[in-house]
């Protein structure tokens, strides 16, 4: 399945953008203006769609002309490109988008041709699949870890570095007690927020 590498799915969607020469602000510009203001950190809609490793939204204005003797040609529409790398299967992911980020999905895709709205999530899923282009070759360097596993690992890495620094030269019994404390704290800690820096919260355990 070329769209997948291990447990990671590489989604490529090209949604044709509506055209209306009578509008003061074109649909493509409206998308760009909205995206410019959309937060990228833990307030991002993709942080709520929590299986997302990385995602981008791009307005593709046209194909490229590489110069003579190649032919110059143009698309009939601009396209909104949605590229996402996420855990799990496509249907679950698209339904999670509807559930967790309906406001943002609507604000962006309302400018696209054929967008059915979100009242019926099944219709939205079908619409997105009609806009999907199969990935020809997909490369994921780490393809066997979920977003949550990676965030946990980064948190552990940070905590371990701080622990080692703080506990150099301690007697074995104290070291063991301190280690059990940090292990317990990490086990009971809430999952780190996607989109954030991973802090050193456990340095003082």
């Amino acid at each position, binding site marked *: 399945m070329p769209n997948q590498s291990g447990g990671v799915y590489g989604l490529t969607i090209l*949604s044709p953008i509506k055209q209306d020469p009578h509008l003061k602000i074109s649909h493509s510009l409206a998308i760009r203006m909205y995206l410019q203001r959309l937060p990228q950190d833990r307030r991002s809609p993709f942080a709520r769609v929590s299986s997302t490793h990385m995602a981008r939204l791009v307005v593709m204005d046209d194909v490229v002309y590489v110069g003579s003797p190649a032919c110059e040609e143009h698309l009939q529409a601009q396209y909104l490109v949605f590229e996402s790398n996420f855990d799990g299967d496509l249907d679950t992911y698209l339904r999670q988008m509807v559930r967790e980020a309906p406001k943002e999905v609507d604000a962006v895709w309302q400018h696209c041709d054929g967008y059915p709205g979100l009242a019926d999530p099944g219709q939205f899923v079908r619409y997105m699949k009609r806009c999907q282009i199969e990935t020809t070759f997909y490369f994921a360097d780490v393809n066997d870890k979920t977003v949550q596993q*990676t965030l946990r690992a980064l948190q552990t890495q940070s905590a371990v570095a701080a622990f080692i620094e703080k506990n150099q030269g301690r007697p074995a019994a104290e070291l*063991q007690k301190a*280690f059990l404390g940090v292990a317990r704290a990490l086990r009971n800690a809430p999952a780190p927020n996607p989109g954030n*820096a991973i802090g050193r919260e456990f340095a003082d355990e």
Partner: protein
Amino acid sequence: MSNIHGKAYAMNAISPMKPWKTWIVRAVFFLMRYFPSATRNLVNLSFIHFARWVIVRRDAFPRLSAQLPKDNLKYDYLLFFSNFNGTWNQYIDAFSAVLSWGLNTIWHWSEKFPGAVPVTPLKNYITQGQFETDYYYTAYPHATTNDVKAAHRVQAAFDELAAAADKPADEFEKAYRRFLVRVQGDLGATGELPVGTE
């Protein structure tokens, strides 16, 4: 600049291909899927989180309403999307220097591709076909690909030590020292991108 979020750069590029050449590129990717050694250098470079090549046939750009006129294109198009660490220049330099064979095998079939070496015409060609990202999100913006791999190695070693941490203190100390040796190369801190490297 929306191409960058934390330590990741989102690159988008497009190039035209004559339709008969598309089949050659498809065959190249088919073989790459079944011979993982073909991507060994990509794995060894370890600065790409995710990358993909997508061939869009000249008649396959989605068209969802009758109002939208049909495209009348002569070329198929090769789209390339990458999520990498480092600067644009570093990325292209590394591609040209280390992956020139792979680069030529994939893009040789695109119109007017100048070749992976020398690097200046390559950069000019990519600049011509690159388009900007309007919004970019990553769940772990301050971690590079190497950071992610290192963190998973630390997690595995930590879990092993934690599972056996209730042994007598002197035995624990020995296990802890072995743990230190095992993870010492994987403890680099994540954080903001150094100033001036964007």
